[in-house]
């Protein structure tokens, strides 16, 4: 793992963590299992994700994506180390199509923000799990 390669892709060092990654990024909400990682990257664009995945593929580096980390089943535990891709800052709304009542969003948007967006337009986003701080991811 070459952190400088990641810095070449994500040209904002504040969004790359390579030392002392907090435990909450190495587990899920329950925290029963804890993985390891060499880097935690807060991605902001498709281009960054694509660049990192291309780098990971060339170098056989495992990648674990995460949103708000509200899952309870270990899906965000980086069991093989490598890179954690955190999508929480990739949280935009791309398109609202009222013909088919379809909204296109980036994966890190929080459910509560999506619900507020459509409700401001007189619409309703029905899926309503208890956890409003979770992402679509």
């Amino acid at each position, binding site marked *: 793992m070459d952190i400088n390669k990641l810095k070449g892709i994500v040209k904002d060092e504040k969004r790359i963590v390579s030392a002392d990654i907090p435990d909450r990024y190495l587990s899920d909400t329950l925290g029963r299992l804890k993985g390891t990682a060499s880097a935690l990257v807060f991605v902001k664009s498709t281009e960054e994700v694509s660049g990192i995945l291309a780098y990971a593929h060339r170098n056989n*580096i*495992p*990648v*674990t994506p995460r949103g708000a980390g509200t899952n309870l089943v270990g899906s965000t535990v980086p069991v*093989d180390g490598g890179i954690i891709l955190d999508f929480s800052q990739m949280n935009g709304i791309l398109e609202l199509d009222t013909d*088919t*009542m379809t909204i296109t969003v980036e994966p890190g948007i929080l459910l509560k923000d999506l619900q507020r967006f459509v409700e401001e337009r007189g619409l309703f986003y*029905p899926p309503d799990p208890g956890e409003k701080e979770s992402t679509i991811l």
Partner: protein
Amino acid sequence: MPIDKTAYFIGFINQLEKESGMQMVSFGHAGDGNVHLCVVRGNRDDETWEKELVVMNSIKNALDPLHILNDKKSYITGEQNEEFI
């Protein structure tokens, strides 16, 4: 599914179920086009089921040949991942 395509999709699944003999259950939230499609084991014996899991794993292998994309979290079968079952 976009709500104007949900009925078409479920019709397609029902047809596929007949043709394949694989039990498929469509349910979910009709109001927002959220189809929880369940392709289930049904009464298949262990040998048949294991073969089908191998097919599912082949999809994972095709999309993620190096097994670097959040590996060991789905389609778990076979000796390689036995420890995670």
